[in-house]
């Protein structure tokens, strides 16, 4: 369940800033590398599936067909059927909504709350920084999935609660990251210049510190989307996320594991979907990060 957290990702990426992907990559800078294009396409498809599933799948994700249970992939059922005769492809397409919703929603919670706490700690009084960061330390001491489970234990299961749980679990890492950025910016020349030019304290914070502190974190958060989606899948896998019969990749995988010996397609495709989502968000996120850092340098 270990998936890289955005914080580690930033640290690891720093020394490699601007490294070329392939020979000649630097010369045709405008066009992103093939890998990024592929990942981007996958991501666009997944987003499309989440927003307008009926565009990609014509069947009913909940339609039970007891005469075609665990049917192998065919012209009618591209990715086969599940234990209730439901079309696996259609369920994957409709399940994208939940997975992405979990991914983006959870990241949004983590990012917004984490940024507020991070900026407050970075700019606030010393005691506030001390208190907030010790709390963050406690949060960081637990693996995110464990924190999410604790939140679920309090709130109960379901998609919305799973989203909150994963979001809350992500807060500490974002808070820590934003605080670090804020501390650096606080003493940056352009901030001090702005102050010297007579811009108000609030003006400096709003116009200079917050945008510059949060922007790199936002890009990194795209990578977090994949992580959060996997966490959501894991919660559903444990029966704590999306309740049946609604399709969700993690819960599909969870049920499918009982039929690995009968129907390989049932477990392989939901697993592949999760893998693709994580890979493509990671690749695209990294690319964006590289572009951004390049510009800054």
């Amino acid at each position, binding site marked *: *369940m*270990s*998936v*890289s957290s955005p914080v*580690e*990702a930033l640290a*690891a*990426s720093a020394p*490699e800033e601007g*490294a070329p992907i392939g020979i000649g990559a630097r010369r045709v800078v405008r066009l992103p590398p093939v890998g990024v294009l592929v990942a981007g396409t996958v991501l666009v498809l997944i987003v499309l599936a989440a927003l307008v599933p009926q565009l990609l799948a014509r069947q009913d994700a*909940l*339609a*039970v067909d*007891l005469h075609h*249970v665990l049917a192998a992939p065919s012209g009618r059922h591209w990715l086969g059927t599940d*234990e*209730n*005769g439901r079309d696996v492809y259609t369920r994957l397409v409709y399940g994208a909504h939940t997975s992405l919703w979990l991914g983006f929603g959870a990241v949004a919670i983590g990012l917004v709350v984490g940024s507020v706490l991070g900026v407050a700690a970075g700019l606030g009084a010393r005691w506030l920084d001390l208190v907030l960061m010790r709390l963050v330390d406690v949060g960081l001491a637990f693996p995110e999935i464990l924190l999410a489970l604790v939140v679920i234990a309090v709130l*109960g*299961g*379901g998609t919305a609660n799973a989203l909150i749980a994963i979001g809350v679990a992500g807060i500490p890492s974002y808070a820590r990251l934003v605080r670090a950025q804020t501390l650096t910016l606080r003493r940056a020349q352009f901030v001090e210049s702005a102050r010297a030019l007579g811009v108000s304290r609030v003006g400096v914070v709003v116009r200079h510190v917050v945008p510059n502190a949060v922007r790199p974190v936002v890009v990194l958060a795209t*990578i977090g989307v*994949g992580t959060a989606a*996997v966490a959501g899948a*894991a919660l559903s*896998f444990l*029966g*704590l996320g999306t*309740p*049946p*019969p609604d399709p969700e990749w*993690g819960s599909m*995988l*969870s*049920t*499918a*594991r*009982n*039929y*690995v*010996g*009968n129907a390989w397609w049932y*477990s*392989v495709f939901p*697993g*592949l979907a*999760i*893998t693709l989502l*994580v*890979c493509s968000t*990671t*690749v695209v996120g*990294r690319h964006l990060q590289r572009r951004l850092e390049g510009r800054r340098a």
Partner: protein
Amino acid sequence: MKKQFLASVAAAAALTLLLAGCSGGGGGGQPQSADDGKPVSGGVLNVGENSDEPTTLDPHALSTTNTTILLRPVFDTLVWETPKKTFEPDLASSWDVSKDGLTYTFHLRKGVVFQDGSTWDAEGLKLNFEHILDPATKSPLAASYIAPYKDSTVIDDHTLEVHLSYPYSAFLNVLAQSYLSIISPKQIKESPETIDTHPIGSGPFEFVTWVKGQYIEYKRYDKYDWAPPGSAHKGPAYLDGIKINFIAEDSVRFNAVGAGDVDIIENTPPQSVAQVKGNPDLRSASKERPGHPFSFWFNTSHAPFDDVRVRQAIVDAVDREQLVKTVSFGQWKTANGYITPVTPDYAANTATIAYDPKKAAQLLDEAGWSQKDADGYRVKDGKQLSATYIDAGVNPQTTQFAQLIQAAVKKIGVKVDIRQETPTQASADAVAGNFDLSAGIWTTNTADVLWIQYSSQNITTPQRQGQNTSRLSDAKLDDLVQRARETTDSKERASLYEQAQARLVELAPAIPLYIRPDLVTYDTKVHGVTFDDAYGALVFYDTWLSR
């Protein structure tokens, strides 16, 4: 940077694999051989059991189905049930029942010696009854099964006269179940606190050790010479010992027997039975369990299921035959009534329950649910016809049934919401009556299960937890099941239970689904796989391993 990316990919891929588990399918296609040859002694049998690991091994303090397999090796019971649903001597060699059904005189078998050296006598039986009813035992099942027990008088060393406070026709039946096993009287008297962790009985195997979360070990009891009737041999058991391993995950347990890590498993996933048939190294056996079939109970105490027409409509709208076939891959039989055919006093000719969605829709119209809302669900007085099912996620097949019922009744305009809860939450809601549908099964070797499940006396109240899950309250049924449990005339009892079963079809307090069998898979080196008829539990006394 790349490393980080690869790590994410690897993590995601590993997650996928991990979550999906790895399974090896069985090959081959040889027919199963029944040629078992001559039994030989020796060897330790490795058993794979599911996660129903109890917190105690005191039989009188247990209640879950799969714990019976842990008790049969160590303990004997007072009477033994035969495949013909009759009761024969085990630790009691004979008994007399008074005409009024209030006095049972047990004549005990002579020469029985417990694993701690103590001898079997009338005082010992009396101590066992008292241990069951002792509040300190906290018996969840055995105590209620012998609730009519008043007191007993020792007539001589081997004769005990038991007095009941009211006639109870299922008394002998329940005495054949492992939950009413006979514990060493010496242990009850001198060190009752040790029963939980080191039980002592008079059965064919002695308890050795219990590594919690992992396994329980037993070794042969060499003095054993009082095998129950119907056993294939006499004297001590063939096996040197038994090791029962707890393997929670269905697919992992099944793969363990395929790989030879264990010799025999219970609770074979039904979807894996075809693999057993195709594997020349494995065999399968199954035994149907007596009692109430696996069902979805309606909460009849509030709307919408307080209306019998709505309940009947739901039962008619579900193609139970097809559902059971789908979920069990053809391995389970559909239940056609409220007790299973292997239960004493089962009546085969009660009205059958047929799949009839047209009639279902008609019933709902009659009940006033004739309008439909924008989503196609029926409404009455502005209220949608909907019900909540609480899923504790204990069993994948139960969740699947819930989804299939949900899809089936949607066709007649009834909405079912599946609410997932933790087992603790779910049982709290069950006690409080916060549900419309609840799934379950009750295994017991007497039609008295109808009294347990449907007598209005057994509806849970703030003072007392009862087992009438559907909260059914019907005067006619109450009378039938009450008289059936009190009569001493077996013909009258059978007739009363027949009427009760027919009445239940009319009342439709549940959707009866399937008769749960004990599906066992074992290696071809295992022979003499047998079950008891009182519960359908595996018994290892006649089991042996070929070299």
